[in-house]
């Protein structure tokens, strides 16, 4: 097994020691006091959806994130072929190829197993659900099949992406590619949970640039709750502020629970 692929297997998105996360605004916290603590986030690269952006909406298989990975996919045996004792050609020149793809695959399989085994199709539950092995296998494979073979009446494609509520944005702004939304009345998302997501659906003019495509984010995008009436989400675009908007925001639940913060404790 090549070293970098072992790293890929061993890590999903967490980068201890980094100060910023791709999908998070939260920084690693290091505290030195009576003990040495590192607080960090352990979560999936895609915190909201069943699958992973690398594989989503790909017609016949898996979207590879670099051109070089085409070769690996075409060889049918990745990453297993990388354990060749005397690799030649592609394998010997590209030990780093496939890292993200392997991480995505581990992530997708982990999600598929949780959906198949846990209550509430894996959402916010730590309890093993009641189902036959046959039923669990069906759900597991349904998470991993190509899009055209999905059983859309079977979980996770049946109800997993459905919103759990709505809120009403009244104003919105974007600064440094972060959108801040104010709602009236309160949005209702409790700070007790860390897995809220949102699908914006605004109706008029420039405000529509804040909308979230359900094509690319079928279960919304993760949000950071600022207060009872305000939340933010990453949204690439020009800096702008709109004082009055019309539309709704659907509220979703993704992967998480009361808290997925990983606490490393060194005594």
């Amino acid at each position, binding site marked *: 097994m090549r070293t970098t692929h072992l790293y890929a297997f061993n890590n999903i998105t967490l980068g201890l020691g980094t100060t910023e996360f791709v999908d998070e605004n939260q920084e690693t916290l290091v505290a030195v006091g009576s003990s040495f603590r590192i607080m960090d986030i352990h979560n999936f690269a895609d915190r909201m959806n069943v699958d992973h952006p690398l594989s989503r909406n790909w017609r016949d298989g*898996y*979207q590879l994130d670099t051109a070089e990975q085409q070769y690996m996919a*075409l060889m049918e045996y990745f990453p297993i072929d990388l354990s060749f004792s005397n690799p030649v*050609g*592609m394998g010997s020149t590209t030990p780093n190829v496939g890292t993200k793809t392997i991480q995505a695959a581990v992530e997708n399989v982990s999600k598929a197993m949780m959906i198949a085994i*846990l209550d509430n199709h894996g959402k916010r539950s730590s309890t093993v659900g009641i189902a036959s092995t046959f039923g669990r296998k069906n759900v597991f494979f349904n998470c*991993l099949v190509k899009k*055209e073979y999905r059983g859309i009446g079977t979980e996770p494609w049946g109800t997993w992406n459905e919103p759990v509520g709505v809120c009403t944005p009244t104003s919105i702004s974007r600064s440094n590619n972060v959108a801040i939304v104010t709602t009236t009345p309160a949005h209702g998302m409790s700070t007790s949970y860390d897995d809220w997501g949102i699908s914006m659906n605004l109706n008029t003019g420039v405000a529509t640039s804040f909308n979230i495509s359900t094509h690319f984010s079928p279960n919304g995008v993760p949000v950071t709750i600022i207060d009872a009436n305000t939340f933010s989400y990453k949204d690439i675009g020009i800096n702008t502020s709109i004082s009055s908007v019309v539309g709704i925001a659907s509220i979703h639940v993704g992967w998480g629970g009361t808290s997925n913060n990983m606490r490393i404790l*060194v005594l």
Partner: protein
Amino acid sequence: MTFNWPDIPFSGTEVDAFVVEYKALAEAIINDMDDYSDVHPVAAFKLKTPYQSKQNLKLYLEYGLLYSAFIVKQRAGNSGPGTDFELGNSPVGPIFGEDQAQDFAERLGCTFTKESIECSFRNSPDFDGSQLMDCGSYGSSFSSTSYNLCDFFDGYFPPEGEPSLADPDDPDEPTPCNDFWGKILNKSEQDQEDPNCLAKALPFLASLFASFSGDPALRLMYGLLMHYLNGYGGVVDNYEWNLIGGTMADEWIRNTTSAWAQAPKKTRYTNAGVNDLFEYGFIPGQPIPNHEFNGYTVQLVSSNSSAYGVSGGRVWILSTKSMIKFPSIKNVLGNYTFVTDGNETIATDPDNGHTYITSISSSNIKQIRDDYDFDDYGWKLLRDLDLPGDDFDNDQIQSGFLYTDDTITPCNAVDQEGTQVGQGFYGGTSRWIVANTHGTGRTVAGDYTDALCKSKPFAIKLTF
């Protein structure tokens, strides 16, 4: 196959129960799965690429256990390791960042330039020691990985003779993307990337020849592509459809839709009969590809068609993926939506609960709808708020998902799609043309503007 399960450095009522179920389910999954065989409950070929290999899936299951168990432990919230890790028990070891991994690999002597990768690839023999890309010697054997590569690299590598090192200074040395337009139009690389009207020359000629044909499928196949490349946009109705496809072309697709919608369930091992040859292009005695939707050609979208302006009807998606006949509705529209008056006869498959059509006449079809777009290497129509076939405005147009940033060129986009490329004009060549009329860079929704020589998606709404 025996799993090498990792140690779970934490415990608790919930996580212990989860781990037991996880391992049991993983065993059942692997026992059921056989590489590339049609096994219960899902055939391996239906899985996305990384999961088709039993060995790979086993690895993912092994490594996925720790992560999913960790999340369960976190959710359970009980105390002990898993909520407060000792450093040595963390599931996360030292990690290379992206830059660190790159530096590490380069210090091992690995280079990441395209030229180096291609050079290595071209000098790499097949696993059995035979020459790579000797496509002629593989015949119809699909067991060789090199045979699969033949389609992908057809025309880019010499079919026989000693593979040679790629020399970027050699003008005769073909490279996968750059040489395409060079060979056809003798254009420079930059010219190949820029949208240009010459990209439409080939489909225009094909469309011209097709217009002499009496086959509506052939005429529509090229005519609709030209409509897209010319950037006409709008909604193609029955009148315009018949102008492109010929008189009564709308009735042709209505009749064909009716016939294909009630095609019986097929399995992978159903052999074709003589009638299938003439109607659908299947070879008698050979296995028929199973239809896309649980073995059927139709998927019920809604039992209420009022949103489509038809009362009392149903809305279906028709899959043409398993149709082999060329040219056919598969080449014209691919999968598309049709709306009925509700008088078709339906049934439910007891095996999987799938609703399908047992009998329908063409007169039951009241609408055929589709969006003619390319959601990967061309323009994509966003339909978050309305329906395929509805009128739209430019704000609903955005680049296909292969255009990931402002630097992605048409060649980059088609190169990614290259793993799927078929052969012939409607396989590889048309994709280069479609991508060329898109141009370089990603256009987000709201930024699309009409321009000369720029393609544009359009809607199709046929009413009866």
